[in-house]
């Protein structure tokens, strides 16, 4: 359906506008030819209604030939051709109508009146065609803007969904489930150790809950959170999990999005260390490289040993969050080489005041 006549209101507005225009045209022609204005109305009202009917479908031609994407020769040729066809049909219909009036309502010479004002009318029909064409293209332009705005809104929604997913993953029921099972086993043999383990989980949860509401954390906070997490996992993995941290101390105050490292490390445990029978070393390196903070998380991976099918969801949510925080200024890169999986985060170095 044509967008200008897809509701009753629009049809009424269009008809009112058209009526006003046709009255003006009749007035104009009456003043040029000295004919009675009512006669002019009788002669021109129906043909100009027909003109409207001919011109409106040009919408589909305009839609098929979007500005900026169609070669201008094609544009010019198509619209000229459409115009010629419309004008031709309009003149034929007008002549036929005037001839009919001649036979049913003499003595006024309707055909003569139509012919003497033909050039004025042709100019007006062409003008109407041009105006309607411009309105159509204007309509497409605003529609495009609206679509872009909608796409931007959708992007925002996706980002907040990514934030939510990251948060959910942090206090994943499965993680709590595993931790409780481990705690139950530790409690049987070593109450002191069970006590320490509980404190570790409490500290881990405290950070997750507190920082899920904040918009920034420091790299130092994030690293401590990861240490807590690895402390919990070490109880499950025993000798299989070894860790190594190499951190440039000057970077600890750098501001980063909260809980941005956790999904990366969790991924390294779930799909990396846990896939290797002998386990391995999870290493975290934070350093500065050409004014950028680089955090590198690497772990061994045994493709044949993976317990879980990877969805890649953890890393893609990190990527989404980086994009929402830094746009193009942050990158996440992954690399798989000789049994090692490496994730590198490149972040701009920002202090508390700048962020």
């Amino acid at each position, binding site marked *: 359906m044509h967008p200008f006549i897809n509701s009753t209101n629009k049809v009424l507005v269009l008809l009112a506008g058209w009526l006003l225009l046709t009255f003006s045209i009749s007035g104009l022609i009456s003043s040029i030819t000295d004919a009675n204005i009512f006669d002019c109305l009788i002669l021109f009202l129906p043909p100009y209604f027909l003109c409207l009917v001919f011109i409106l479908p040009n919408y589909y031609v305009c839609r098929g030939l979007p500005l900026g994407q169609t070669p201008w020769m094609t544009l010019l040729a198509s619209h000229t051709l459409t115009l010629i066809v419309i004008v031709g049909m309009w003149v034929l219909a007008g002549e036929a109508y005037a001839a009919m009036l001649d036979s049913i309502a003499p003595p006024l010479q309707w055909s003569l009146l139509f012919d003497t004002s033909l050039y004025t009318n042709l100019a007006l029909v062409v003008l109407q065609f041009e105006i309607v064409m411009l309105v159509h293209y204007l309509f497409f332009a605003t529609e495009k803007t609206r679509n872009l705005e909608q796409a931007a809104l959708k992007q925002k929604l996706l980002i907040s969904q990514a934030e939510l997913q990251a948060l959910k993953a942090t206090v994943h029921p*499965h993680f709590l*489930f*595993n931790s409780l*099972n*481990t705690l*139950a*086993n*530790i409690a*049987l*043999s070593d109450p002191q150790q069970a006590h320490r383990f509980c404190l570790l989980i409490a500290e881990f949860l405290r950070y997750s809950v507190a920082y899920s509401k904040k918009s920034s954390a420091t790299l130092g906070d994030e690293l401590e959170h990861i240490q807590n997490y690895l402390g919990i996992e070490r*109880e*499950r*993995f*025993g*000798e*299989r999990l070894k860790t190594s941290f190499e951190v440039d101390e000057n970077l600890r105050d750098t501001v980063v999005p909260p809980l941005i490292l956790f999904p990366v490390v969790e991924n390294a445990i779930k799909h990396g260390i*846990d*896939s*290797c*029978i002998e386990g391995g070393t999870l290493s975290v390196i934070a350093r500065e490289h050409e004014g950028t903070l680089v955090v590198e998380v690497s772990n061994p991976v*045994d493709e*044949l*040993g*993976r*317990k879980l099918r990877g969805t890649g969801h953890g890393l893609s949510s990190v990527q989404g969050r980086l994009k929402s925080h830094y746009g193009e200024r942050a990158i996440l890169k992954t690399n798989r080489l000789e049994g090692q999986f490496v994730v590198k985060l490149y972040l701009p170095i920002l202090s508390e005041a700048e962020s």
Partner: protein
Amino acid sequence: MTDTSAEKITVLIVDDEPHARQGLQTALSKFEQLEIVGLCENGLQAVKAVNELKPQLLFLDIQMPKLDGFDVLELLGEQTPFVIFVTAFDEYAV
């Protein structure tokens, strides 16, 4: 004494988490009719241990790297002793 030990049921524990193995060992040691003959950390060790020690009862974890509990059963085939699955995997846990 020797007579009673001969009647004991021999048990093998297979779990990749050290605390889970230890916890199970502590729990099972309270049953006098059970004798724990070995602890295994993964599926590979489990298959080897079953062949060597011929336990009558297997406490078997499902989620383990490389060979999981089901792979172990498949490899053991006819030699499979009685099996009790031990798992923290909520999909299989009853």
